[in-house]
């Protein structure tokens, strides 16, 4: 799935432990949820100060998702 690959690429480039990045895709009727898990030490690197990084990832994700016309939501789990 395009959006999953995109998020995986972005997140792996940001964290110190790319091998423990895990993304689960939950397909719904209208929207898709991507559940992201990273190592505890890395969570700050994905969220950033005031959520700036998370916001940027979501912005890029929604831009990519407009191409397929589906709503894709990114959830960062801890």
């Amino acid at each position, binding site marked *: 799935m395009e959006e999953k690959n995109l998020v995986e*690429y*972005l997140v792996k*480039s*940001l964290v110190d432990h790319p091998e423990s990045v895990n993304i689960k895709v939950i397909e719904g009727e209208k929207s898709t949820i991507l559940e992201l898990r990273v190592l505890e030490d890395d969570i700050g*690197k994905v969220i950033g100060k005031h959520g700036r990084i998370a916001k940027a990832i979501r*912005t*890029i994700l929604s831009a990519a998702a407009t191409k397929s016309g589906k709503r894709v939501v990114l959830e960062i789990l801890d």
Partner: protein
Amino acid sequence: MLMKEFEGKTEKDAIKIACDELKLSEDQIKIELIDQGKVGFFGFRNKSVKIKVFYEESAGSPYALECKKYIEGLLNTINIPFKVAIVNEEEDKVFISISSSESGLLIGKKGKNLEAIQFIINMALNKNKKDKKDWKKIILDIEGYWNRREEAIKKVAMKAADFVRTTKKTRLLQTMNPFERRLVHMTLQNFNDIGTRSEGDGTYKKVRIFLK
């Protein structure tokens, strides 16, 4: 082959600006005249000359190549046609340009997507540098978007100043980032009768333009 537009008072002037900005000599670029400018009364030009400049991209440092590779990898995941080129490099900055048939999608509303991509790239490639002073900033451009945006903001600022002068009211501009606000302040600082002030909190504020 890359292309960029430049403006100058005369054709020679425009070529000089282009060479300075691209850090290339005149024989490394190919020039096409787009607008000769108007010759008004007494042979004075009252419009600037516009040229198109074609040039080959520079090879780039290992860091610049890494940036390029990163962007290519990123755009590959979303399946759109694109071309990435290293435009220029300074000691602490790398200028990279993307061209794509989907440029609108990559730029987003008011450059939102472009800003987000640029931000992430900077985070990803500088993540191992503890001190922010060691950062080598990556500046991404898509088909001259920042130039166009700069011109648009200057125009908005001038228009608002005219509005303030004629109506004697104040005018609050739309929300802008620090760079854009600075541009508004700079554009209007030479007018003695017009004042500018940022209002609001955080990174994104609004600029108010008023009569002094």
